[in-house]
């Protein structure tokens, strides 16, 4: 999954219509529904393409998400814990993905294991918000970040293969 395919992968996913953040009550519920639908669609498509690369679940109100993501480099699977929160000003503020295990192991990351997306993803989000959601963020931010960073980290021996 390369950066050049970024817009392709975005195009495969439908945009989200409801504009609401976690503080917006029923409106947020509506949005969350849409988020879930798109997410399911995305996962389903990944499965169909034999390209499943993450698992997530949320808390009840859908503001905190946890799960795993993995990347296969040279036939070796590297798996990491994934977590993120929906910011209060969502969807005008983009989601910040966290890979706590990699905290301090690469400089392309903020403190607390938040991956650095300023250059590629932030402008994209600004361009399409509020139409983009969680699935879009996973597809266009975390996916490319893993593809770019993990091979480097794996070569450096910073990350270890999962079992």
């Amino acid at each position, binding site marked *: 999954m390369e950066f050049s395919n970024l817009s392709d992968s975005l195009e495969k996913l439908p945009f989200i219509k409801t504009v609401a953040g976690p503080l917006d009550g029923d409106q947020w519920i509506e949005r969350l*529904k849409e988020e*879930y639908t798109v997410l399911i669609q995305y996962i389903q498509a990944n*499965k169909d393409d*034999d*390209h499943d690369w993450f698992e*997530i679940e949320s808390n009840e109100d859908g503001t905190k998400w946890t799960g795993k993501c993995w990347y296969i480099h040279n036939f070796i699977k590297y798996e990491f814990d994934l977590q993120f929160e929906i910011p209060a000003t969502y969807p005008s503020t983009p989601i910040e993905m966290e890979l706590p295990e990699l905290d301090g192991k690469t400089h392309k990351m903020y403190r607390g294991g938040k991956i650095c997306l300023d250059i590629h993803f932030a402008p994209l989000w600004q361009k399409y918000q509020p139409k983009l959601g969680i699935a879009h963020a996973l597809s266009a931010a975390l996916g490319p970040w893993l593809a770019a960073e993990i091979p480097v980290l794996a070569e450096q021996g910073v990350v270890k293969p999962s079992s």
Partner: protein
Amino acid sequence: MQAILELQRQLKAVQQSKGAQANKLNERNVVDIIRKLLEDNKIKLIYTQDGKEYLTNEQLEKEIKELLQESGGRLSVLEIPSHLGVNIDVVERSVDQIVKKNKLNLINGQLISEIYIDLIMEEVYEMLSDKGLLVLQELTTKYNLPLDFIKESIQHRMEYSLPQGCQLQGNSLMTKTFAERQVCKVRGILRGVTRPVALSAIATQFKVEEQKLKNITDQLIKESQIKGKIQQGLFIPQAFTQMQEGACRAFYQQNRYIEYQMLSKLQVQKPREFIEQVIGKDKGNFLANFYISKDFVQQIEGQVQEIVENGSYLDLSHIVPSPFRDQDIQDLVNIVGDQCRLLSSNQHIVSEKFIQKCLEEFKVSSEQIAIKNIKKGIKPQTEEQKKTQQVQSTNKKGKGGGGKGGKKKGRQQDDNDEEVKEITVEDQLQINITEDMIKETLSSSSNFVEFKDTPNRDDYLFDTLAEFLHIPLNKQYQMIFIEVFARQSTKQNASVNKNLEQEVEENFQTLQFMFKQLELLRKIMTQNDKEKEFDVISAPVKAHWCKTDAQVMLNKLTMVQAFYNNVDLNNLALSKDPKTQQNTVLNANDRKTVAKQFQKHVTAIFEQAGLYLSNKNFDDFMTHLSDNIKNLGARIKQTDKKIEKKIKDQLSKELKDQITVDKIESPLFDFRSLLIIILNNRLLESGVYLNLPNEEWACKIMTNLLINHGIESNMDEKKKDDLVQATQYYSLHCWTKSEDKEKITEIKEQSQNLLLELIK
């Protein structure tokens, strides 16, 4: 919220499901797997240029073959990458494999299949049927293929792809009918030819390939369809050869000779071979420019024979055909005129007899000229002089621009002044008989009426004869000159020799005289029973005579003998006379050299005499000489009493002349020589003259004889004492060094007195 929970459940379910493609490998994995396989060398694949596809070699070959077929059997290798999207390197490698495996040709980077060649052959078939002749070069330009490839392809398919009877000749392909038509054409052309013509010219004019034309011509000649031959690229029709032979024969039969140049005009390359072939080998003679028949030569020979017998001359211009040139006439004369000479004009031939007659005419005048020249002091040259002069004269000729100018009148007069200055004997000899003189003598001679100065005289013959005679006449003159010179110098030599002969006679007689005196001494001593002492005394005396008097006499005798035998001493390697610097006989080697030139028995006499001398055997020498003197031709008288007396008187006079009181009293007197002379004289007076030299041993012998052997009668004691003293003084003079002047002056007076006493 219910809906949310439902969605959460759905999410979980989706995440747990395996997806539609769960059992299939996705593209990414496939790429990885293939890459792994490639790395392990388990499979070999070719990438397309866009990287989207893999190909196996077999697939690539198959695709290339398909592409070749699609493009009609001819495909540029460079086009393949754009069609198949594969790199050119890979394509080239694959093409090489294909060409190896299949019946395909790779020509100039193009793949060409059999199908394409078949297509070409179809077109060739059509063109051939249309034109009958096809030049392969046309095909190369048309199909842009190499000639060799086209030729090879055609040769392979000749039988089944082209019309029957097609021929590939050189670079042209032609049908049977066309070839036949061409043969007919050539036959027509060559039958029409009447003179030699170059095949290349026919080829250009009638547009037939030259090689083809040559082959056809050869074949036609072989089949006797045309008559003629090919020679140096020319076709020579038989009619032309017949014409040449006919013309040659006709001319020859008419004139009995034929000129090579005429044959050249008839385009005969080698006239001599041609004549041998047409006329025959031995029917005539080859001259420089003509061939002349034998009977013609014989006819001329007959006339020449006539003048040889008559001793006259012949004007060839009436006999020899007018076109004959100088060289031909010279050749002809070489054949017919053994005893004749051709004059420089190449017109007249003169018999040797006639020349001899002319030379005879000049003998008297030559001799007169020679005598005149000798009187002027000219001498014949020696060989060396001649050689150096030859070199000089050749140099001169070289400088003067060469040629025979010297022979001509004008040049001689012009150069006269010069030649007077640096006159050489040779020049003088050559100048002595000029052409003018020859002409004058001939025209005034009664033996040569035909050369009288009348209008009827053949002036041309006269001039050339004079020119011709110039050289032999001068040669003859030289011979006469040398002869005359020799005759005159013989007279001089004879007088010289006579003196020498006289000297020899005198010397011989003196020797005989001395020999007799010695015999006398022997007798005296034998009477006194002193034979042994005689031997002791006579041995050194005889040895001395062998070294001196006898040797001189024999040398002179050798020279006298040389004169009688006409041996030229100047031609032998001999000693030089210190005075005259002429060759003379001075020692045993000279004698040997000269004696070798004598008759054998004379040589033997001289060698024997020489041997006696070198062995110091005086007695045998004298006997040998006395026995043989008559055989030597020298008129030498043996001694008799009269001669002996004459010799004795002469010797006595000579000796006495030398012993005068003045000489003794002179301050520069030589005691020793004077004493020896006195002693010799006293012995002569006593009848035992030994002619001994001024040496101590001689002095001792002589005083010994005088004192002890009673040779001199009335010898008193006083005289004996004087003699003894004189001998002592002699030794004193011998051993006293010239520096010891005191002693010499001391004994000077005494010895002078002693000498005066002795001659009293």
